[in-house]
């Protein structure tokens, strides 16, 4: 089969071919979704290496259970759910580990302010960096579920309905979690926000 027809094949066709023993078909599916899965994983765990591992684990797990995929949702949604579940497991493990060790290096390293260069948008970059650090600090206060919902909203810009579908929750439940998360983030960002309000001339 030539590459053009392979790339045009639908997900269902590629799944059927994979189940029939065609290893190349699964490679096409991996190529089709790996970027999206990596982005979701990275949005939640905020770590390059872990996002890479979670992406790989997601595709291996999906391959193992491919015969059980009933096609009630899109393959992309199914893969994203697996990735989110794996990311959630990782967050919980990390939280458990952090209870016994005070290794917060991965978080702290984001607070390091990089040297500002002399380019015109340097100040804007610095402020964006400060805001990013403040948000990261605020995220520490969130539970795993709140963190996942907040990050899918903040980094991936998913709508509440999309998040609800991905997490298998009611839309109202997601909204409630997001509200609680935003209130915690707001408190943490209060200082940063106040600073902006004191200096209204500064661009946000």
């Amino acid at each position, binding site marked *: 089969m030539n590459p053009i027809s392979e790339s045009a094949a639908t997900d269902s066709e590629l799944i059927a071919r994979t189940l029939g023993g065609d290893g190349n078909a699964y490679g096409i599916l991996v190529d089709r979704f*790996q970027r999206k899965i990596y982005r979701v994983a990275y949005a939640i765990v905020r770590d390059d290496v872990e996002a*890479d591992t979670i992406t790989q684990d997601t595709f291996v797990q999906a391959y*193992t259970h491919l015969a059980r995929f009933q096609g009630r949702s899109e393959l992309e949604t199914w893969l994203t759910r697996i990735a989110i579940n794996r990311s959630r497991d990782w967050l919980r493990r990390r939280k458990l580990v952090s209870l016994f060790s005070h290794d917060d290096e991965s978080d702290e390293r984001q607070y390091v302010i990089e040297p500002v260069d002399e380019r015109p948008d340097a100040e804007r970059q610095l402020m964006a960096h400060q805001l990013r650090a403040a948000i990261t600090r605020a995220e520490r206060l969130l539970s795993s579920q709140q963190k996942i919902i907040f990050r899918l909203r903040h980094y991936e810009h998913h709508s509440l309905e999309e998040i609800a579908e991905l997490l298998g929750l009611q839309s109202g439940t997601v909204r409630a979690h997001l509200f609680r998360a935003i209130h915690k983030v707001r408190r943490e960002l209060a200082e940063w926000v106040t600073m902006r309000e004191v200096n209204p001339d500064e661009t*946000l």
Partner: protein
Amino acid sequence: MKHFSEAELLETYYTQPGESMPVMMHLSNCHECAVRYERLEQKLRQAASCNTDKPATFWSRQRLQIMRRVNAQQVHAATAARTLRVAAAAILAFFLGGALVYETVRPAPQPAPVVRVAPVTVAAPGPAANDNIHDAWQSDELKDFHNVVEWEAWVPESKANTNGGSSL
């Protein structure tokens, strides 16, 4: 006119902007707040943007690793299935062999010991049963007198009547 705070605008950004109708209505009328909201939105989007654009080599390496793990899993699954089949065959052979050996070495069936039980004879009514009963009137000794008794009994009736009705 009351302006919305940064915190309120922040909340509006994260919740569905379309759902915060009071804020959105205010923003449509208040240029100052609209500009602030736009800046905030821009900043948050900038802060949220992360560089996940990796070089092509990153994706090809990742894909290669995934396919390698998938293939390894296939081999592992095949090995596990083969091992399972071999184990099942071994168990079956063990039981069949055991059954065969048992049939071979099993001692020949001994004839059941004959227990001679004295037949229970139920005494049936009849002559045979009467034989066993010692009846003094049926003894062999009386048989000798049988003819005599029979002779004496054979007396003409007329004579018998003359003798006063007595046969003897």
